[in-house]
């Protein structure tokens, strides 16, 4: 499965950057539309790959960046979860662009401290 190897890579990278001590509550990532990743599959794979790891029980928070659609006929721009759409002006092939970003943005960690 496409998402499994990505979930494994996120897990390895998150462990590498995890602060010492503290329990990781969630890992936040950002994914460009070009990557073609499915949020629900990623979340399912995340549970599987973290089962035996220090990240067990943590949540994977996925921000999906959409396609940017630019219509060459009417000049309008909008975002869409899919690349091939028609424009309401009648243009059948507006230009889709997207990023292939796959970034670890942050981690939310529970730390014990003194009052």
């Amino acid at each position, binding site marked *: *499965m*496409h998402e499994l*190897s*990505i979930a494994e*890579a*996120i897990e*390895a*990278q998150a462990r590498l*950057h995890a*602060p010492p001590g*503290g329990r990781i*509550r969630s890992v*936040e*990532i950002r994914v460009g539309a*070009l*990557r*073609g990743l499915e949020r629900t599959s990623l979340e399912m794979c995340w549970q599987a790959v973290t089962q035996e790891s220090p990240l067990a029980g943590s949540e994977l928070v996925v921000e999906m960046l959409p396609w940017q659609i630019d219509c060459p006929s009417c000049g309008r721009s909008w975002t869409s979860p899919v*690349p*091939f759409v028609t424009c309401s002006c009648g243009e059948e*092939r507006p*230009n*889709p662009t*997207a990023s*292939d970003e*796959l*970034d*670890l*943005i*942050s*981690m*939310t*960690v*529970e*730390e*014990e*401290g*003194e*009052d």
Partner: protein
Amino acid sequence: MANIVRTVQVPLATRVLESNDVIAAGNRAVLTKLGILAVDLIGAPGSGKTALLEATLRALSGGPRAAGMVGDLATRRDGDRLARWCDQVVQISTGQGCHLEAQEVHDALGQMDLTPVDYLFIENVGNLICPVGFDLGQAVKVGLFSLTEGDDKAAKHPYLVEAADLILLNKIDLLPHVSFDRTGFVADVRQINPKVPVLDVSATTGEGLERWLAWLVERASAVRGASVG
């Protein structure tokens, strides 16, 4: 004083595939320094990746100048086919892996004598999705589609189309026999990647291969220029 639990958000801003990217950059540095054109060939199972490489190696009179790497989940059949046409081939068994990663290419490079090599063909695992996102250290990425897969495959795999330096449309000799809208296929490619060249080829009949070979020769001389410069 009581112990309290604080929740803090730790900013990271790092690439998920950073470890792979670092190894890929190392591969690229080695290959570029030696003036080797490394081609990452990505296509679906049955699209004719191995057949295309056989025809390519035959035309280049492979021998010592060309080398191959083949990624497959199992068997060495493709590697054995390529070994008939060039001196060095490494078959990489990926096990459960649906794509090649930079570390596997790094390890395979370690098994090769790269001195006489001008062309390194890396046949990725048959898959139009996963291989695209993993940098191997290649100089160029080639997306291989074929007529028998159907004319909607470019539209369904925009990442490969966007990332490819060249799109090959294989089995073009079957055009009179299968239902394939070539104009629509090219329009889909253009919509995602307006600049990428699309070449019709047939690994079986040899049709269009001279243009593919000319493209390779041109890209190889660019890599050699970079290694000298």
